[in-house]
């Protein structure tokens, strides 16, 4: 019940702040911004770029929503909302849970938008409904892991602006230095081991196969491990950061 009230509150704030509009526009900019200029360049390497690109667009959109999650928790901390909740008979993790569930709604909106744009440029699910659902599931797992971590950082930080600036940096680096935008062979030799093994690349491999070609346990294994690892680190951290008394 408390959870429901708080979730409704953050969702309304999200609409008022046009955050949902941004969640819809951000993947659009990335889709057209990378697809139209690079389609030709990638065609020369024999890559169907719509099929290749969409996983990373989805993952970037998810990372964006997690940055908003950090801003939200930072704002609640600074305005004293979090302390206020702690003085009231509100069950400890409820504010965190409500932030997560409203963030989840935003992620679903952003994911849906990204898939619509993907369809428009020719991205298709060819492996049936089960694998398509798993594609969406993976995106949301990714988003939830990052949001938990981002929420913790936001709760511990002093200003929403500084938080989003600090988080843009890892997003840019991990997002760009991945096999999401260009294949591994496009990178200089020295950086390939990092590019190949980092989580964003592993997620993009699995999601690419889920959409087209069929996934194998060999591809899924690192993704599951990364998700579990992120969850094991981020969930307790977010719980601790949000229930801690300042």
């Amino acid at each position, binding site marked *: 019940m408390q959870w429901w009230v708080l979730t409704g509150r953050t969702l309304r704030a999200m609409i008022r702040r046009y955050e949902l509009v941004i969640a819809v526009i951000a993947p659009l900019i990335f889709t057209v*911004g990378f697809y*139209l*200029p*690079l389609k030709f360049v990638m065609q*020369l*390497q024999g890559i169907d770029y719509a099929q290749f690109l969409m996983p990373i667009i989805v993952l970037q959109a998810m990372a964006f929503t997690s940055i908003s999650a950090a801003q939200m928790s930072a704002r609640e901390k600074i305005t004293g909302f979090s302390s206020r909740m702690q003085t009231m008979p509100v069950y400890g993790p409820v504010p965190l849970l409500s932030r997560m569930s409203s963030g989840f709604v935003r992620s679903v909106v952003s994911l849906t938008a990204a898939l619509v744009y993907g369809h428009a440029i020719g991205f298709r699910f060819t492996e049936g409904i089960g694998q398509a659902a798993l594609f969406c599931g993976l995106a949301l797992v990714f988003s939830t892991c990052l949001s938990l971590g981002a929420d913790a950082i936001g709760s511990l930080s002093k200003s929403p602006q500084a938080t989003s*600036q600090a988080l843009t*940096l890892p997003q840019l680096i991990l997002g760009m230095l991945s096999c999401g935008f260009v294949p591994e062979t496009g990178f200089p030799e020295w*950086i390939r081991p990092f590019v190949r093994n980092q989580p964003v690349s592993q997620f993009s491999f699995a999601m690419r196969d889920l959409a087209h070609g069929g996934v194998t346990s060999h591809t899924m294994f690192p993704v599951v491990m990364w998700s579990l690892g992120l969850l094991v680190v981020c969930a307790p951290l977010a719980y601790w950061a949000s229930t801690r008394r300042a």
Partner: protein
Amino acid sequence: MTSTDKSLDQNELRRGRTLNFPEPNAALPENSAKALWTHSLIQARRLLVSWARDPSTAIQALLYPALTLIMFRVVLGNSISAATGQPSIYGTVPLIILVGAMFGSIASAVGLRTEKTSGLLSRFWTLPAHRASGLVGRMIAEAVRVLVTTIVIIGVGFIAGFRFNQGPVAAIGMLLLPIVFGIGFAVMVTALATVSDNLPLVEIVSIGCTLLMFFNSGFVPTMAYPVWLQPVIAAQPMSVAVEAMRGMSLGGPVLVPVLKTFAWSFGMIAVFLYPAIKGYRRAASD
């Protein structure tokens, strides 16, 4: 201050003499050209000092552009160079310089809004300073900032293989052209930031710039874009400036793209200068 001094002051006050302000010895007529010059420099210096002390400006104007340059080079460089047969760095360096200038202007326009709401602009407006010094000083500061960004980005570009193949004159031209472009853009953003309190115009410009970052001839050459999009790509202001700078570094036509860049920049100034003056005046005197 001793008690005798105090009583002396009291006596002087009683005799009708007020506090002892120093006699002004550097007063300039408010609307003289010399006042414009001096006061603008003071304003420019004020802005530059506050930017230099604010880490988020440094991040936005220097660190992010430099990082983006490295990212574009490492991630897309080889693919683009292989597909087009031309080193991509000669497009990426000009592009990132322009992007740095544009996002720097946007950050400074947000700062302008803060100065308006905090009442600082109104405070300046009450001083016997030249009326244009606020705006002119801001543009001087923008020019200096763009020049610093340009030098830093070219420095990073050198690590990634960027070279001046066209001699020192072209190199100097390459340092100056972004300033012309940057001032044109800054006048536009200043006008948009002050013309309305309610519309999120600066945010819209910011989204537009993110989009333009992908749609210009510096990201990938014009011919790589879909055919229906090519005329737009080739004509937009960033592309012509990129082509001019490509000509000044790698080689290629220079005169025509430079003239087109001037046309865009001075065009923007011509269209937005009056709204910027009006908006600034309104922001300061409201």
